[in-house]
């Protein structure tokens, strides 16, 4: 089996661009708090979702619907409605994280395929087995904290499909349970779907340098032209023992395009491109590059040239946790 290329779509235009550029599968979400990329101007209303799924199906491709935030107590209805709609619109699977939402989907829509979101932070054999056995989860999106060797060992033991991040931002924290952004802004990525919401991000000049701020907190100071990431708390500079540094993660992007053979050999089913918040041009370029790389791998050709540095966040790339030493 060829590696399945799973691509982001923040808008209907990006969905079509991803399909046209060679995505096997597109993932997207509704325009509300039920998905983990709830940023202004992004995502799909009900009609757009149905149209997008029909567009993909006409071309023999798939659409996965992310309903991967954690409902607030007392108001699970938006999450339930999202799953009901995904089922009625013939989505190929839903991507879920919350135990209550998983339970609802399993009970009400047993025939709707369920994937476990990275937001569930299932990073070991037992956690994955829990979701597999309780909710008949068919695929797990693995957290970005595992090495290729660890992934291979998991694949052998868990008996369900795995999807791993191949390109996009590096998330150093255990996802779905990081409260740094709400600690600073009061808005919860976990339940409202936006880490470092744009409404709370600001930039200001500081002499020759720029400051990036989240809420009332200064997250970074950088020189003009110096690569800097979007100001999420885990990409900031902090002072420890009198020394300022990128304590959690450098401004780098994950790019696994030159280790696709290793991931395939590890038994991975699907490659996930991150970036529903990115535009159509990004989608076209990244999806096209990965399509060519996967096809070359299948033909047994030498690796294709990696030309993605220009769209990588911070313009620098890393293999992240896939290679030893990252920890």
């Amino acid at each position, binding site marked *: 089996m060829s590696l399945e290329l799973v691509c982001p779509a923040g808008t209907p235009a990006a969905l079509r661009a991803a399909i046209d550029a060679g995505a096997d599968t597109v993932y997207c979400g509704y325009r509300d708090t039920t998905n983990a990329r709830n940023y202004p101007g992004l995502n799909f209303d009900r009609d757009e979702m149905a149209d997008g799924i029909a567009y993909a199906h006409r071309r023999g491709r798939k659409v996965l619907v992310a309903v991967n935030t*954690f*409902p607030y107590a007392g108001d699970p209805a938006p999450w339930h409605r999202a799953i009901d709609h995904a089922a009625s619109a013939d989505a190929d699977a839903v991507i879920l994280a919350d135990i*209550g939402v998983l339970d609802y989907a399993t009970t009400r829509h047993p025939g709707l395929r369920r994937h476990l979101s990275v937001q569930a932070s299932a990073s070991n054999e*037992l956690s994955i087995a829990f979701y597999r056995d309780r909710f008949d989860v068919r695929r797990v999106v693995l957290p970005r904290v595992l090495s290729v060797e660890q992934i291979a*060992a998991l694949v052998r033991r868990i008996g369900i499909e795995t999807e791993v991040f191949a390109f996009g931002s590096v998330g150093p924290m*255990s996802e779905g349970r990081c409260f740094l952004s709400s*600690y600073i802004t009061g808005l919860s990525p976990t339940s409202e779907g936006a880490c470092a919401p744009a409404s709370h991000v600001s930039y200001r000049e500081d002499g020759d340098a720029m400051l990036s701020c989240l*809420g009332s907190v200064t997250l970074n100071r950088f020189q003009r032209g110096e690569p800097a990431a979007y100001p999420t708390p885990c990409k900031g500079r902090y002072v420890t023992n009198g020394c300022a540094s990128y304590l*959690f993660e450098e401004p780098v992007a994950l790019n696994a395009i030159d280790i696709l053979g290793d991931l395939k050999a590890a038994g991975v089913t699907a490659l996930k491109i991150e970036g529903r918040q990115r535009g159509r041009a990004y989608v076209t370029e990244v999806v096209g590059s990965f399509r060519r790389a996967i096809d070359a791998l299948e033909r047994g050709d030498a690796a294709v040239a990696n030309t993605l540095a220009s769209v990588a966040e911070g313009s620098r790339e890393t293999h992240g946790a896939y290679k030893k030493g990252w920890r």
Partner: protein
Amino acid sequence: MTRSGKLTLGPLLFHWPADRRRDFYFRIADEANVDCVYLGEVVCSKREPFFDPHLDAVLARLEAAGKQVVRSTLALMILDREVAAVRALAESGALIEANDVASLQELSGRPHVIGPYINVFNEGAHDFLVARGAVRIVLPVEITARGVGVLAGRSVETEMLVFGRQPLSVAMRCYHARAHGLSKDACQFVCGQDPDGLAADTIDGQGLLSVNGTQTLSNGYLVLLHDLAALRGMGVTHFRLSPQDLDMVAVARIHRSVLDGEVLPAEAAAALRGLTRATPWQNGFVHGREGLAWSDTALVPA
């Protein structure tokens, strides 16, 4: 159960020397007015072997003192030996606080506690876990009063963190090691240098975070003395104190006196301030604000 609510001591999050850790728990057993003590390494499995020689003595001392002892698991498990350890703990029959869903695969159908590192934000997750053996749920640190109102008193016991640095994230990577230019695999246990966490300030000098190995905590202490009565009214049954590098026996006494209605929150706060010195206080999450904020207005009792 006491009508005024039970006081618990959460797991020690920091890497204290094993002897100091033992002596800390001996004193808790002998002197602290807490009903329940959580014991176990939550942050980093590399730290675990140090305390093993003292574990049985500490367990015996706490149980002899009449404390309920709950064994806490790691918040993030990846390595085979970490998974094997939780399996063995589950098989021992001890009451366990599950902090990673991995534990639930072993504990399902048997009484257990859901720790604050497993997301229980809504009644769907709550009820699913209760149906499979959860007898107490420790709500996530991010929970708001509205969420507490829905979940506490719904069925099983409900616990909330009410004192100590707020756990904000866990990771595979060790930031303590990174701050010292080391890797996790060759960390030299530098986290042991900071018994109350390593300050991580903003570049313009604002206190913001505290690093504890792979865990990131708030720089300030969560203080909910003023809200204890309201939370009790909402149905919270257990109130957790997270061990910090200060007199935790005194912290327990202060909280007990407020829960029992013997001392007014303002008077208790003055006493607590004497213990916490310059560390800022925070209570924003439960008030529906930024977690780092401090709100002077107490929650309204239900």
